[in-house]
């Protein structure tokens, strides 16, 4: 059987900050930190170029081809922006959901870096996101994907304890060490510190922890062929035809080819005139002709377990955790064991480094991240929903990404997409917003007033 095609698209829009001034700090009546005109303009532009046409195409493909299926991760802030700027976009996603062939993944509501900063906040934001997806689409996510595919062994265990059965990650060469990205992996088994396990148990979105968690790895070469290289005339693969690409998909074999990319690939990063929509339109037909099927992340995992159970010959409904079965399995000669993806340090899908340096690579990023997370207990103590929501909007990873100076020396300033003039402008606006937030905290009860003053 040819490998399944697992398509997942990331859909996200941050709340960009307006040109805040120091003279406004502590003076405004509301926490008006965001550039609504800009955010609306960007949202509408991307909606017209990508979300709406791409969703129309996806809907027709889902209806036409029984074996076509896709997955999305829609960030909570994106869904918030849908309510503000694009009810039409939200409705088009709801139409897709109604086909029953679309899986929605879970992520942190605010597309934040909380996974590496604050476990409690991480659990809470994930819970918020799950509830929102349930409300809007009537389904419950079972697979998690973290902001910018940030991933580590510890995160995988955290997410397992939260109750997820799968997690997505970048298939980096140094961790795969020659192995295929087209197979599901499991993280190394270990216990988290007791305190952290308890914390997760108190704040997890699901009632029960999951016994097992599978890791699906992005096939970055094939994903990036579409996402980054599709219209690159200097690339040897240019122009990429759907037939050729399908050959490549089949070439690697394995259980599933995981094509993970930003949804904006369609129409925004690769403009319509590059032929990206035509490319996408052609694929399912070719796949059908060649007997290839799509599977969403949870289906990929389910089918892998089924295959595994069939091979090991164990009852799929048995109560023993798969991990233990596997140990049994190893004892039986000739049976496959689940390969381990060992991400001791943190990886992501960003840049060539595929690490955290895009968000915490310099002093201003570190300072901003620390400052926003330090406010957590005080913000939550106010119980003020508006304040908490605004604080969380300031956790969106894009704010820190805009402060990145990794390639700022080479004059290669366009490598980083940013709505601001410079990383320093990003920091100037951000630090003003945080200062104003601190001022607001002081206005809560006299007792907390003192506490805040002391703490700040």
């Amino acid at each position, binding site marked *: 059987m040819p490998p399944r095609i697992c398509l997942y698209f990331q859909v996200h829009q941050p709340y960009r900050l307006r040109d805040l001034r*120091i003279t406004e700090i502590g003076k405004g009546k509301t926490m008006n930190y965001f550039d609504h005109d800009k955010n609306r303009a960007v949202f509408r532009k991307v909606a017209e170029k990508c979300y709406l046409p791409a969703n129309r195409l996806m809907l027709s493909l889902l209806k036409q081809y029984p074996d076509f299926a896709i997955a999305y991760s829609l960030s909570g802030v994106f869904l918030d922006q849908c309510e503000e700027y694009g009810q039409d976009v939200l409705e088009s996603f709801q139409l897709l959901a109604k086909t029953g062939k679309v899986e929605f993944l879970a992520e942190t509501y605010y597309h934040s870096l909380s996974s590496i900063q604050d476990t409690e906040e991480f659990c809470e934001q994930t819970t918020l996101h799950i509830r929102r997806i349930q409300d809007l689409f009537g389904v419950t996510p079972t697979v998690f994907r973290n902001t910018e595919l940030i991933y580590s062994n510890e995160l995988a265990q955290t997410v397992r304890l939260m109750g997820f059965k799968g997690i997505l990650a970048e298939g980096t060469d140094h961790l795969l060490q020659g192995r295929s990205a087209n197979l599901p992996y499991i993280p190394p088994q270990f216990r988290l510190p007791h305190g952290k396990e308890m914390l997760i148990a108190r704040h997890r979105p699901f009632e029960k922890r999951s016994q097992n968690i599978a890791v699906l790895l992005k096939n970055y070469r094939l994903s990036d062929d579409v996402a980054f290289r599709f219209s690159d005339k200097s690339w040897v693969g240019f122009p990429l035809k759907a037939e050729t690409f399908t050959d490549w998909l089949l070439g690697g074999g394995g259980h599933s080819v995981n094509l993970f990319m930003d949804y904006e690939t369609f129409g925004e990063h690769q403009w319509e005139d590059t032929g990206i929509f035509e490319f996408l339109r052609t694929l399912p037909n070719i796949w059908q002709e060649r007997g290839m099927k799509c599977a969403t992340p949870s289906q990929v995992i389910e089918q892998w377990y089924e295959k595994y159970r069939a091979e090991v010959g164990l009852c799929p409904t048995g109560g023993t955790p798969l991990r233990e079965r596997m140990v049994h399995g190893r004892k039986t000669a000739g049976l496959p064991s689940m390969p381990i993806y060992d991400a001791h340090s943190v990886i992501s899908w960003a840049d060539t480094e595929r690490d955290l340096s895009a968000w915490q690579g*310099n002093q201003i990023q*570190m*300072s901003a991240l620390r400052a926003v997370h330090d406010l957590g207990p005080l913000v939550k103590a106010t119980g003020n929903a508006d304040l908490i929501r605004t604080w969380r909007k300031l956790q969106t990873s894009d704010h820190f990404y805009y402060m990145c100076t990794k390639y700022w020396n080479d004059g290669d300033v366009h490598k980083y997409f940013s709505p601001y003039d410079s990383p320093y*402008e990003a*920091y100037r606006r951000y*630090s003003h917003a945080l200062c104003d937030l601190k001022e607001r905290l002081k206005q809560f009860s006299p007792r907390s007033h003192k506490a805040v003053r002391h703490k700040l």
Partner: protein
Amino acid sequence: MSLHALMFGWEYPPRHLGGLGVACQGLVRGLVNRDVKVTLVLPFAADGSEDQIDTLCPQEHHIRNIRVASLLLPYDSPELYLQRIGSIPRETAQIYGEDLGHAVHVFTETSIDVTKHLQPDIVHAHDWMTYEAGVRSARHHGKPLVTHIHATELDRTHFHPNEWIYGRERWAFEQADHVIAVSHYTKNILVQHYGISPDKISVVHNGSNDVLHTRPAQQQESASHGKKHPMVLFLGRLAIQKGPLHFLEMASMVHRHNPDVQFVVAGDGHMLPSLVQQTIKLGLQDCIVFAGKVSHTEARKLFAQASCFVMPSLSEPFGLVALEAIANGAPVILSKQSGASEVIGHAFKVDFWDTEKMADCVLTILREAPLASQLTAEAPRVLQRLTWENQADKIVSIYENLLHT
């Protein structure tokens, strides 16, 4: 055989008032290091300048300074000229025009005469005062002409040019086989306001004479933070082009928000009296120091002490002072209307007229220690790339292109 460039310059350190002399020296040294033989013609007999040059840079015995008697003072003449025509009626200004014209004429005639016997491969002229000499010399020798533009009349006068000077500039750009602009900003002015084809203009940013002077750790710490009185610095000629009035406006806004901030205005120029007046009018007399013209060593000290350096120029073809500031560890805020802002990445950049935003950037740097520290640490990296040798390489390849086409 090495290339021989015949260069017409206007000033040369230590006798210099603006960036022209510094840039000219850097360029000549860079070219000499790249095995270009340079003959530099200067209009003045600068006392002791040669000794100074020799001690500074031994390779410079390659340079033959040929001096021509001239009535003109070095670089400050356009500005003094501007000051004079600014204060007298239009008709009378013509007299100064004729006066200056005559002086340039004398320089042109004599400098052509003393270089007649040379056999250069290329002729290279710096700024409008030397352009006629350059054009005529290139014709005489039958060699390509490069006009190098360090500052246009439009920069100096905030786009209210003396037509005669503007006309001579434009004429020379048209005559030149190639034009070198010190920034894209300047190239753009030549295209937009002088009608010169962009294909004919190459941008070669100025280099830096400064290596990175690391601040002593203690000083670095006290410079921006934890100190009782943070200091914000202006350093430049007190002329309209440099934007000292905008600096005062910014200072007044900063002062309103944080009365502890001190301001130092270093440099001299004809605007000093009006700036002092304005300072009093704004009620800033207790927090602004007018330091007058400062030596290189004093300037370095000021940069090192400053919590941030602001360059609010109205139109700055390059702005070497910004490179000096970052070399000495000052976080910088630069006018977007400058060439330096094209090469310095780790800085705030604002429109010169947006003094409110300028003030906001100053206050942000003062408030945010990690920001100041990062700007200080990261900005000077550009100096490693922006050496005069690297910039001379670009000029050599421009020469070679001209000679082989």
